[in-house]
């Protein structure tokens, strides 16, 4: 067995015979070999600092702060029963914002459900996000999906679905197609640690390797798939090393460090554009909140662990960095957050009072055109609810 391989097998001592006592494993895998540029106090490694314009840095910060506030307010709306569900990204904001900021505007994004940041950094409005949460008639999805399935053709963000990992081969296909068409566009897909176990991770990674697709696989390793810690998800020590099985390079970065995420994505994008193929990026991060509004995380993780991760907060780090660079100060920071909050509250109101999609819409977009059976069903529904009915 080659030496480098033995080293990279999971230290098996963690595992008892056959199955694991969860008490032992309620810990994330070690943060080994991880690139960090910005530390938890806002210190940064000058020599590695990516070259980002001040304007973009400020936009990135705003996007990250917006994600956080958006979640706080939306979770409140959910508890009040005004939206049906919420699945948050608090603690993971650097991943989606840092990576998307490093791409070209017309590169394609295949998100999962924790990436409102990717849309915001591309200029999507908070109002549009709320249209999705409320599923109203201005929602691009026309009210068909649960909250947090943000889609925007205009922003080159492709409609996500709920099944885990299915977007991965789509990103690969898109990237191959762009190359066929001699376009310079690349694709980036987000997914979680749990998703690496799914079949579509395997399919997508393998096809990308073989066809040398210009695609970036951005795995947000937040340590859990609902209740399951990563150590139970796979016996490999890192997720990054899975790239090796597909003949693909990988990087492991601090996912709470927006500069590290940005620079790793930039490198991967350059490789992709140069025809050097795909890259897997493992971003180590943590979700501070529950898996979703239906989840009770105290069943499977300790509060101390959450506290430990709160210290590594990506937004605080970004804020400290910007202050060090004198791009913001306490006052402007406070003002910004206030601003964001106002925008969010007024957008929520607006979306909430937007009418729902009319009953006829239910039958559209199954196919390009209505089939006879859909028309039969539409007629029955319209007869019952009345034409143009949008709910009470």
């Amino acid at each position: 067995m080659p030496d480098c391989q033995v080293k990279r097998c999971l230290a098996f001592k963690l595992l008892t015979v056959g199955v694991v006592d969860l008490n032992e494993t309620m810990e994330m895998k070690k943060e080994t070999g991880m690139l960090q540029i910005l530390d938890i106090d806002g210190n940064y490694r000058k020599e590695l600092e990516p070259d980002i314009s001040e304007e973009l840095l400020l936009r990135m910060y705003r996007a990250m702060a917006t994600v956080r506030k958006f979640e706080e307010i939306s979770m409140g709306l959910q508890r009040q029963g005004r939206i049906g569900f919420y699945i948050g990204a608090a603690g993971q904001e650097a991943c989606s914002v840092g990576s998307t900021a490093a791409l070209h505007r017309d590169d394609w994004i295949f998100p999962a459900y924790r990436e409102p940041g990717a849309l915001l950094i591309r200029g999507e409005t908070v109002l549009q996000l709320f249209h999705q949460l409320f599923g109203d008639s201005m929602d691009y999805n026309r009210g068909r999906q649960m909250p947090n399935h943000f889609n925007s053709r205009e922003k080159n963000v492709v409609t996500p679905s709920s099944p885990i990992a299915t977007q991965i081969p789509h990103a690969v296909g898109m990237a191959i197609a762009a190359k066929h068409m001699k376009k310079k566009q690349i694709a980036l897909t987000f997914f979680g640690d749990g998703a690496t176990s799914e079949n579509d991770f395997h399919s997508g990674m393998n096809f990308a390797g073989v066809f040398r697709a210009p695609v970036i696989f951005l795995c947000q390793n937040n340590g859990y798939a609902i209740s399951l810690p990563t150590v139970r998800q796979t016996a490999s020590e890192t997720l990054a090393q899975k790239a090796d099985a597909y003949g693909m390079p990988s990087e492991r970065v601090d996912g709470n460090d927006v500069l590290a995420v940005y620079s790793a994505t930039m490198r991967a994008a350059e490789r992709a554009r140069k025809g050097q193929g795909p890259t897997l990026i493992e971003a180590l991060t943590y979700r501070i909140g529950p898996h979703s509004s239906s989840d009770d995380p105290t069943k499977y993780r300790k509060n101390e662990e959450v506290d430990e991760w709160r210290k590594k907060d990506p937004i605080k780090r970004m804020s400290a960095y910007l202050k060090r660079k004198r791009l913001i100060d306490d006052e402007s920071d406070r003002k910004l957050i206030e601003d964001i909050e106002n925008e969010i509250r007024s957008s929520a109101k607006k979306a909430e009072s937007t009418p729902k999609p009319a009953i006829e819409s239910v039958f559209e977009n199954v196919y390009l055109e209505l089939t006879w059976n859909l028309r039969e069903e539409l007629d029955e529904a319209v007869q019952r609810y009345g034409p143009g009915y949008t709910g009470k």
Partner: protein
Amino acid sequence: MTVRTLLQSVTDAMKTEMENDERVVVLGEDVGRDGGVFRATEGLLDRFGVERVMDTPLNESGIIGVATGMALYGLRPIAEIQFMDFIYPAFDQIVSELSKIRYRSGGTYTAPVVVRTPFGGGIKGGLYHSQSSEAYFAHTAGLKVVAPSTPYDAKGLLISSIRDEDPVIFLEPKRLYRTVREEVPDGAYTVPIGKAKIAREGKDVSLISYGAMVRTCLEAAEAAAKNGISVEVIDLRTLSPLDIETIISSVQKTGRAVIANEAPKFGSFAAEVAALIAEKAIDSLGAPVLRVSGLDTPVTYIWESAYIPDVQRVLSYINRSVSY
């Protein structure tokens, strides 16, 4: 006897059989410490330990494939798929392997796995947390397909499924998980697979259903009774093997049939029921065989209410049938 919800009955059935039979193990995503996203496996880990209540990686084909291997060895695995909408990555393992091992091995190998999964709408889950795709499984030779609608039946049928020598797809109507409650015996008892139940007797029209729709049908029957229409409600309980006798003798009595389910109408399981009636009871029929089903669309998040047949919609089909 204890008053139990359907969900508690499911948990109790597993607990009962795990106590009775060491070979019974449970595996799936979040079934351990978390107790399952619907809490169906709550308490099992503490009681039976990590060797019998196995949290698995996020991979449905692995769950079913590994459960199949365990069953080949002689265990009795109960595999949980978190939502029926997420069963498809395991579809190949189910239709190519689980269902065909007995047959292709000439009976030398068998894989008595129970695949438990919540199905149907009612939780505002949109197009990926509301599906009723039982037709795919009922059409697959070698699988049994069970779908209870009461706490009593849920426990008795799940125990039967665990003891069955064939693989069973056990569909749990998630919108009834916590909304129905009844006295359920403690300890083990069985309800036979393959037997429907006359949930309400009637003489004007046979209303045939399963899963959560049975509740809706009973309410519709109640409402119809006020208009002097006597509806016989049949709770199929098992889709495969289907209890053809109960269906046909009811239709022969009433002369009318409405089939109610919430799967997309086109090609759904209701079609098989209708086809059997059109084959075996044609002379008794005084009206078209009607189906009141889900829409031929994915389930819309915001318009779930228009998707799943409600009492009013079922009633309108009853009326169409009896007024024909």
